[in-house]
């Protein structure tokens, strides 16, 4: 391995990227576009769920509770109804997808025992929305309950263990704001890095074959390892810059909480970068035209990452067979690591298995890539 040859290739490659509008767009514009598109466009959150209200009691307490619901922003009042039959009708004709029924003795029971019940009915056709909306409803009720508990304290001076509980209670870990963006954005970073990395590198060797410059290059003493390192290093730096941009945007623009170590984040990102770029390079070496290589790179990165990395579709809800396949998708480890670092602040020991998997991939891909290139025409 000769550092001068590696440097010559790296410099040449940098000049070519700089002068190639297509590569430049992939390197600079794609991360920005994807970050905006995926960051804002994809959201599993539901806002302003149309909710019907049937307040059988119509007391001050019950009105306060309804007030909490509309003030949350998650629900909007679709209609105020006066009978169970009206609730049924409103659900049937989809005026609302949920109804909140406050029983006639709600405030009285609450005042006497410190506990009460409210009934929430949801349209089960859209299971996903219902799930989420139920979660939101619990959140609002918990909030109302807390207010009652404080009031109870003030009035009675003592707090019975059960005071201020309105039945439904759930707790959400890591993502207290129930904002699915926090869950998605780290995955978006992975997808962008994979897309940009594999796309750029899938062009690099194929371009030489396509333009006939490869024949000259392989008649020189350059070795396949020098070519690999020389060609990948500029893209690796570009990839790290792109990653830094995406991660900073995630943390500061989208306000995804970051609880891990920056050093671990950089190291795992570098590992992932090596894997995706190595795959792009491998394709480029094998497929001698730019279009073919970049199309296959897209298929090998985008599809499995979108589907099987756990970036949007939670892996633990998939059938066992598909979950087994997902272990082959290198991106799942990085997505997992990103969430560990951003949301959980996991320790190194907790992330060790994911890091090991990524490292194994990186080593394997580099090994294959270094061997794939043959300095012959036949």
């Amino acid at each position, binding site marked *: 391995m000769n550092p001068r040859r590696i440097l*010559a290739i790296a410099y*040449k490659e940098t000049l070519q990227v700089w002068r190639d509008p297509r590569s430049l767009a992939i390197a600079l514009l794609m991360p920005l576009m994807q970050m905006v598109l995926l960051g804002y466009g994809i959201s599993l959150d539901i806002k302003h769920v149309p909710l019907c209200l049937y307040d059988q009691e119509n007391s001050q307490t019950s009105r306060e509770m309804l007030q909490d619901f509309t003030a949350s922003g998650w629900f909007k009042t679709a209609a105020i109804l006066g009978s169970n039959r009206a609730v049924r009708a409103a659900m049937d004709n989809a005026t609302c997808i949920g109804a909140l029924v406050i029983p006639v003795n709600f405030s009285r029971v609450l005042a006497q025992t410190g506990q009460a019940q409210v009934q929430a009915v949801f349209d089960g056709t859209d299971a996903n929305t219902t799930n989420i909306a139920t979660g939101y409803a619990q959140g609002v009720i918990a909030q109302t309950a807390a207010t009652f508990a404080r009031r109870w304290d003030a009035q009675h001076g003592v707090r019975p263990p059960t005071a201020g509980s309105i039945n439904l209670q759930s707790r959400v870990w890591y993502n207290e704001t129930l904002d699915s963006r926090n869950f998605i954005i780290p995955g978006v970073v992975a997808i962008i890095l994979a897309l940009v990395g594999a796309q750029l590198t899938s062009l690099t060797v194929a371009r030489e074959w396509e*333009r006939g410059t490869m024949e*000259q*290059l392989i*008649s020189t003493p350059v070795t396949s390892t020098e070519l690999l390192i020389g060609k990948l290093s500029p893209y690796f730096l570009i990839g790290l810059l792109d990653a830094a941009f995406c991660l900073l945007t995630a943390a500061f623009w989208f306000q995804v909480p970051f609880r891990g170590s920056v050093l671990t984040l950089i190291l795992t990102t570098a590992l992932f970068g090596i894997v995706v770029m190595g795959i792009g390079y491998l394709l480029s070496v094998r497929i001698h035209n730019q279009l073919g290589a970049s199309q296959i790179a897209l298929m090998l990165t985008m599809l499995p990452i979108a589907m099987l990395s756990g970036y949007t579709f939670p892996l633990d809800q998939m059938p066992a067979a598909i979950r087994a396949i997902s272990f082959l998708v290198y991106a799942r480890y990085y997505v997992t690591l990103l969430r560990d670092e951003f949301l959980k602040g996991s320790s190194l020991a907790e992330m060790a298995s994911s890091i090991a998997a990524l490292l194994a991939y990186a080593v394997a891909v580099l090994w294959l890539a270094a061997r794939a290139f043959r300095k*012959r025409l036949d």
Partner: protein
Amino acid sequence: MNTAPAVIAQGLTKKFGTFTAVDHLDLEIAKGEVAGFIGPNGAGKSTTIRLLCGLLRPTSGSASVAGYDIVRQPDIVRLHIGYMSQKFSLYGDLTVHENLRFFAGIYQVPRPQIPERIAFAVSMAGLEGREGALVRTLAGGWKQRLALGCAILHRPPVLFLDEPTSGVEPEARRRFWDLIHTLAVDGVTILVSTHYMDEAEYCNRIALIDAGRLIALGSPGELRRHELGGQLFELACPILGATLAAARQAPGVIEAAIFADKLHVLLRAGTSGEALLAHLATQGMEAGPIRAILPSLEDVFVQLVSRRQKVGP
């Protein structure tokens, strides 16, 4: 300085599937020689050069370049050669200087020597003042000379040029050959392929190649004098067709062909032009005058190829 040949090929053969591109080629090129590969398109010239550069693996046979085996030591061979492929293969999106700088790095030209070598290559290509121009904006002749400049940055002892002048206008071709001879004077061994017969005259030695086989090897003079196995005559005559038919039947005639408005007749050694005229006169053919001429390389090539086809491979 040892005097071993710069290029040796023994039984060099390359098959692509059932097609034999290079067929048991034996060749030796001495140091400092300008050797020409002449032959029609598809004769196997490029394949031979690629084999010698280590870009293709021979099906059988062996070859060495600058003393190194092309199969066992391809990377050492690559250190000692410069190669210019048939298709232009510099980076069009890099400037003249950037291309030169790139190949200087790849060939590990010692750093202190880089500016001087690049300056030499630029002046050789006649590109002074255009070092900053993107290579794709250059005209054909300049591109070719720049490609040559890139191929000799590391001062290789052996240079392979595959149809370096194809698609280049005549004046630029002539300048290119001047460059080749300048390099040869400095002791560089040069193997150059071309399908321009007139360029063959610039070579010290010529290998005529057809259908993957070496059909003649020698200096242009040798080939013209000896390869045909007879003396070539130019015969003027009023009725070309009938005279040609009669001449082919005449004793001592190896071959006869129409050449423009005259006949070219190859006579066996010992047969005189006058004897042919006398024979034709007995057939009632009026012909003359007749004079001995030196065949062009094209004559030689056409004769040798058609003879091979008659005999069969």
